[in-house]
């Protein structure tokens, strides 16, 4: 692997590779799971799932949290009285929301989050949120989105949440920045990117979602956006409808992805490659030095992705191009060809791309391939470990700071650690 990463690949990518589409049991989270990080990002927002005991149980189990302090999410559990029509579900919801807001006077934004049961019984949360917004605004804004498993898969819950926020963004040419970064990033990563953009002379940057419900970024036609996360199809579509122009780039994972992503922004200001390199080179080199340590462990190792977060393609690109790993199968719950165009162009040929899932068949393929490392959800990880395979639980990839130059090595380490651990225990 050459120390200098070519910015424009000469080898043909796999953008026309056939995709294996499967329909069977999908071993994935629903969109409600996004609440676990969204409530930590927007710290004065509260997420009220309108659903069943299963939804409440999912949140506390998937979050593993049982966090002691009262969480900024809760479930309004529908019971048989609501279903039998003995109680008017909307009155009940109003009562629950009033009680909640009384308990939590610090809340500035309340999301009513739709679930499988609320959608099947056609409880109109959009209307409910408008009604409640009329009652509690401007103190508390009330919005709604769907996190249901029948509509959304895992990270798509963030997409539907942000999509619900797009109409709330002020359309204000004077206040809007030049560049909008879209997708939840840990605060520390946001700050790192801000510094780079500043040094590139792109100081006019805003981030969406914001850290507080009252700090929604303004938008204007002609402003640019860069997607920081690969799962924001609907949010991006709505922003594009509002005239915001999406910059096509790989996602900022690894040195190459981060460089290309920043370069896409730099070009909008007419920066030359030399000017650009002058700013990013020290960071890029630092990241490459840190990555080199992990290449030893990872190069040549084979990798199998089960579908989970839609981060799979960008991560596969990073692991294959910067760490020399061999991709066997890259599964994704949903393949957005436009947003993935730059990624597909960089992926090596000869890999299996799969979309959707039939978990039993995929497990058969995985066992037959005996990859060195399997990226999968928590339900599959220990069972595969007990069969002698090494796994990386994918949820950590969503819950850890992994974007940008400074985290490139941390991201590689997440894959190196299970291998190092297995080696250590075997010794």
């Amino acid at each position: 692997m050459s120390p200098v990463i070519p910015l424009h690949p000469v080898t043909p990518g796999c953008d026309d590779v056939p995709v294996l589409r499967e329909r069977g049991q999908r071993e994935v989270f629903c969109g409600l799971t996004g609440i676990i990080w969204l409530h930590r990002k927007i710290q004065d927002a509260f997420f009220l799932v309108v659903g069943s005991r299963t939804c409440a149980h999912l949140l506390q189990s998937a979050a593993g949290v049982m966090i002691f302090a009262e969480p900024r999410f809760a479930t309004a559990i529908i019971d048989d009285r609501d279903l039998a029509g003995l109680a008017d579900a909307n009155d009940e919801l109003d009562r629950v929301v009033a009680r909640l807001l009384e308990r939590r006077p610090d809340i500035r934004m309340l999301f009513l989050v739709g679930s499988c049961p609320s959608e099947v019984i056609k409880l109109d949360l959009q209307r409910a949120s408008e009604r409640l917004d009329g009652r509690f605004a401007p103190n508390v804004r009330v919005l709604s989105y769907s996190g249901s498993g029948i509509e959304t898969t895992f990270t798509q819950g963030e997409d539907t949440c942000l999509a619900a926020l797009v109409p709330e963004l002020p359309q204000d040419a004077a206040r809007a920045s030049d560049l909008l970064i879209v997708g939840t990033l840990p605060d520390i990563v946001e700050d790192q990117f801000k510094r780079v953009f500043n040094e590139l002379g792109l100081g006019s940057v805003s981030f969406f979602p914001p850290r507080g419900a009252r700090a929604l970024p303004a938008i204007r036609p002609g402003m640019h956006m860069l997607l920081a996360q690969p799962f924001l199809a609907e949010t991006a579509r709505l922003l594009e409808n509002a005239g915001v122009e999406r910059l096509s780039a790989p996602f900022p994972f690894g040195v190459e992805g981060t460089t290309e992503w920043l370069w896409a922004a730099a070009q909008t200001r007419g920066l030359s490659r030399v000017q650009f390199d002058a700013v990013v080179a020290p960071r890029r080199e630092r990241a490459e030095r840190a990555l080199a340590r992990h290449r030893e462990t990872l190069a040549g190792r084979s990798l199998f992705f089960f579908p989970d977060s839609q981060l799979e393609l960008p991560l596969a690109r990073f692991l294959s191009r910067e760490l020399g790993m061999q991709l066997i199968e890259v599964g994704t719950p949903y393949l957005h060809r436009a947003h993935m165009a730059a990624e597909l162009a960089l992926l090596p040929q000869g890999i299996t791309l799969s979309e959707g899932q039939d978990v039993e068949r995929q497990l058969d393929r995985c066992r037959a391939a005996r990859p060195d490392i399997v990226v999968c959800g928590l339900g599959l990880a220990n069972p595969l470990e007990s069969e002698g395979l090494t796994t990386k639980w994918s949820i950590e990839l969503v819950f850890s700071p992994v974007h940008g130059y400074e985290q490139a090595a941390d991201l590689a380490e997440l894959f190196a650690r299970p291998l190092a651990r297995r080696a250590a225990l075997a010794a």
Partner: protein
Amino acid sequence: MQLSLWTYEGPPHVGAMRVATAMKGLHYVLHAPQGDTYADLLFTMIERLPSRPPVTYTTFQARDLGKDTAEIFQSAAREAYERFKPQALIVGASCTAELIQDDPGGLAAALELPIPVVPLELPSYQRKEHWGASETFYQLVRHLAVPMARTERPSCNLLGPTALGFRHRDDLREVRQIMALLGIEVNVVAPLGATPNDLTRLGAAHFNVVLYPETAQAAASWMQRSLRQPFTRTVPIGVRGTEAFIREVAELAGVDPAPALEAGSRASWYSRSVDSTYLTGKRVFIFGDATHAVAAARVASAEMGFEVVGLGTYNREFARDVREAAKLYGIEPLITDDYLEVEAQVAALQPELVLGTQMERHIAKRLGVPCAVISAPVHVQDFPARHSPQMGFEGANVLFDTWVQPLMMGLEEHLLTMFREDFEFHEGAAASHLGRTAPMVPREAIEAAAPMAPVAAQPVADQPVLQAASPMTSQATAPHATASQAVTHSQNAGASQPGAMQTSPAVQPPGHASVRPASEAGIVVATWAAEAEAELKKIPFFVRGKARRNTERFASERGVALITVETLYDAKSHFGR
């Protein structure tokens, strides 16, 4: 519609999964939307089981609704049968599938599979996890067990242990040992480790042992009626519980109880050892599933010499047992699945020890009260690598160790009473034998934590964002969360602790101090004279809250408006200890 922040129990289909996962050769086809597969991780991550639960989910999506969800179910059931070749199938729906009314039972029957197919009706909008486990086990037994000749030698079935049970694995070893000492054969253990074929042999046992009534009582009652098998009513938790259990079992089997009774327990002696004197009258609050809560109350009161000041359960199906038990201690039982209510009662009662579930562990941590876990819902910590039963004589030893360990030790407590606080030993410091952090919340703050007060915003922001959320890291976040909580809960928020997040004005709770527990509403609280307040500070911190409360109660009952040093000692003499 019920507002729920945390739940003690999952939905009933999770109870069915606990039975299916405990068994071998059984498969569960669950009509459920995408996302419900999260339940797998309960077993693979919390219990760390090395294989997937034997569950096939249909994972239908919105686009399937109104078209072919029934067909999806049938092909899932057919494929599950062909792939896993189970001895029997259970089929049912999760909450969402229940609404679309596809009738999994009928659809599965239409497949005419060559194995027993047991349909489950688990009403998700009325019932919960324990009920779901009980109903599933009952249906399996009803469909599979048949009358048959008894074994020659006395024998029993051990009923109730499931996957994701609180120490079921270890309890089973203890109970098996008791049976071995008594010369009673164990015919079938179920659900844990049993196959559907094993369930067909249940009728050969002379009687049934119900270890966990929450899951096994319904099935045992049916077997009593249909197979004429009596079943045990005593749960072998604690020394006396174990002795009573041994006698009950010996009588049912017609054998001599002596060989099993001889084993005895070290806990009985430890409890009599003079250093245990300090345990006398410790005020304990108990909450959990009915079986463990009632047993814990009995052990706390009769075997540890504690005073039971609170007793409750989240399990409404077994509320009656808890009500009966509460009468023994002259207290009002707390029957609720609302953890905020439990927290309010812990705050109001100011116990010196909480015996509860993982939820109460968090409540206790927040309030700075020692706590031990006695019941499900479980956490990864409740599956220790070592043998750690709750039942039998060894279980009694475990209870002694687990409950006493979080408390201040005997002589330490005396020294504290004698010399009050010093710079190294004070309420902010942990007991010397504990390697963990001290109670973070000043006692005064506990007194102020009124049941109906609005709570502070969740202050966990000093962790890197997005990092705190995986099942394995929840422990790591605890000190931060608690420390921060202490600040927001403290009346003297100025004394902030290192590592606690800065609380923005927007999330500052409206003064806790002004809000009193609902039970005291309408009562004028006397004010404290400065010298009385100073005297109160000289009382050891772990009883100070109680002293304050008693004095205020004493004052208000007598219409004393200003509490002086004399009032304090009048109250002390009135209430005694």
